[in-house]
């Protein structure tokens, strides 16, 4: 099994394939792409497109086709989630929530040129294809948000994706300024979808919706989800168990 990890875009990027015909150059091509994405879309880099848009240094006529593609995904996501997902927040432009999924999807396209069995992960969001080195579907753990060394579910994925959105912070209190009370509810939501862009954006939106999020996913065809609550209980959508690997 070939496995490589790099820290890019502030998160671990992991590439795996059981296919030994995949070369170092092939792997490097994918990492190079992630570095390009960071340089181009990071809100933390002054020269990035995102920073320049926020400074008002470039306007819409100058947007690249690639940026327009990302914005189109953002726009449809905003519509599908009743505004819960928005790349504009308090007058600030931050498309990172779309860029992450989009970047994984593009990385998948690069790897697919060389093999049909692979695993691509960026910061806990994963798209797989084919099988692992044992010829089985890829076995993916869902991390326990209360103990990061532990998994609380194991699922098998073949050619689909999973993304988890949440706080990654133990015992966090989330304050709801609209209702003026503390929310003691969802800590993380993991969403399985056919593509990583869909899994990623719907996990983000479902998490932002709080307890309603799991029902939002329940009513979407082709999506399943697992939501972990603050009291160490969890709720799964009705079809989630089809992916579960029983111990």
């Amino acid at each position: 099994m070939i496995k490589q990890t790099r820290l890019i875009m502030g998160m671990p990027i992991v590439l795996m394939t059981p296919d030994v015909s995949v070369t170092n150059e092939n792997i490097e091509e994918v990492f190079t792409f992630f570095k390009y994405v960071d340089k181009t879309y990071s809100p933390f880099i002054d020269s990035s497109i995102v920073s320049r848009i926020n400074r008002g240094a470039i306007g819409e006529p100058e947007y690249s086709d690639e940026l327009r593609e990302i914005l189109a995904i953002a726009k449809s996501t905003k519509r599908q989630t009743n505004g819960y997902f928005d790349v504009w927040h308090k007058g600030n432009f931050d498309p990172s929530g779309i860029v992450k999924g989009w970047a994984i999807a593009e990385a998948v396209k690069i790897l697919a040129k060389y093999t049909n069995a692979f695993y691509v992960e960026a910061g806990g969001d994963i798209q797989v294809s084919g099988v692992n080195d044992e010829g089985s579907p890829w076995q993916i753990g869902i991390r326990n948000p209360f103990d990061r060394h532990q998994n609380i579910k194991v699922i098998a994925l073949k050619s689909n994706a999973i993304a988890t959105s949440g706080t990654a912070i133990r015992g966090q209190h989330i304050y709801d300024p609209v209702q003026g009370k503390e929310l003691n509810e969802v800590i993380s939501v993991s969403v399985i979808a056919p593509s990583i862009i869909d899994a990623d954006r719907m996990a983000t939106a479902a998490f932002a919706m709080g307890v309603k999020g799991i029902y939002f996913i329940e009513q979407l065809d082709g999506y399943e989800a697992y939501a972990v609550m603050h009291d160490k209980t969890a709720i799964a959508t009705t079809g989630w168990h089809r992916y579960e690997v029983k111990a």
Partner: protein
Amino acid sequence: MLKKLAVAGFVIVTFIMYSLHQRNEGSQAAQKVPKNQTNTSQTTAPSSSAITPASSAANYKDGSYTGKSSDAFYGFVQVRATITSGKLTDITVLDYPQDRDTSIQINDSALPQLKQEAIQAQAAQVDGISGATDTSRAFTESLGDALAQAAA
């Protein structure tokens, strides 16, 4: 002022050490690895490294300190740190994507009531792990800022 710098420095150094650790791991050439060997080490959340020095070491001034609002992937994260008896005792997230002024219409009655279950540790070997990491950088930034104020 010195104290403020020291705290900020500690947070930054911890984060850099984490980054270097990651880089080290990443620089290893393509290799055969047994399943799951690297999974636990590659996913250290930067947020936890910011909490450790605060709760164990420094003597902060008691009170509540609000960190700057930091960019997360899908919005802003802003935290308030509460210091009691010189120690970090609570972190409240003030600003989160949940503050969006929107509502989602879901017809609950048309959906099955989903069952709630206790979470349970699974021992099975895995190829990879899905978990939330996306807001940790923004969280670290805002908390670091709040603690710098507490130390000032």
